[in-house]
């Protein structure tokens, strides 16, 4: 049987791969500021995948998908803006 890219198993593989990528960015000593922002963006992508494919928000009433995706965006923006603000006044390392 052909595996569809959004089948639960494929989504799980992608989620685990993205998680390992996040940790490897820290472990490999990437540029700290960029790595942190990428890690939060990866979390946003993972969260969206769970919301759409595991919670099936893409089949729920439209307003639920809108609200959950808005929450996802808001949390991501909150963390990234907070992090970027914390860099101001400090030398970017």
């Amino acid at each position, binding site marked *: 049987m052909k595996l569809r890219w959004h089948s639960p198993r494929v989504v799980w593989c992608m989620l685990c791969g993205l998680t390992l990528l996040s940790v490897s960015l820290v472990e490999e000593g990437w540029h700290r500021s960029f790595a*942190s922002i990428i890690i939060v963006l*990866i979390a946003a992508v993972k*969260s969206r995948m769970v919301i759409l494919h*595991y*919670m099936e928000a893409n089949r729920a*009433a439209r307003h639920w998908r809108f609200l*959950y995706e808005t929450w996802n965006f808001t949390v991501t923006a*909150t*963390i990234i803006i907070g992090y970027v603000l914390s860099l101001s006044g400090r030398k970017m390392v």
Partner: protein
Amino acid sequence: MTTAVQSSRPPGTDGVWTFLFIDMIIFWMMFLSFMSERLRHVDLYAASQLRLNEFFGLANTLILLTSSWMVVEAVQAARRNEVRRVRRFLGLAWILGLAFAVDKFAEYYLKIRAGVTPAANSFYSFYFFITIVHFFHVIAGMFFIAYCRGNARLRVGSERYVTGLENVGLFWHFVDVLWIFIFPLLYLLGRR
């Protein structure tokens, strides 16, 4: 391998979607408070974060992601009226929930033994508060999963059971979504 099954009606009930959304707003406010406090004590937060072992967080992320996948499989099996698969996948999801709890307890034990308590500083107050509130959600989810597994033999096949299991699935995935943000927030952000 069996095919993915989608029901013709929307998953879960509006009440659960609403409850979860309100809970998500509460967690967003916790994240906002954490980030705002972090701005005031950047060096303290960076130093405190280094005492957390990111591999505990990584293990818990992988455990919850796998557990979420098991619940998706259980919901799809319920839609096909496959009692044995529903029970098997819910059993695996519950065991993975237990693994999450063991990992969390081990982490708390090591921290407290090393003298790190919620009173140590505001980073650890947030660390313990956010993870303990999340942990209570995991325990509640495990209770719901065990309840659905216990009722599977008698009730798989009824529309009501499928909807109930979808609601439990929504809750469990929501717990997963929260951890997806908690992990980088507490363990990885700004780390080197």
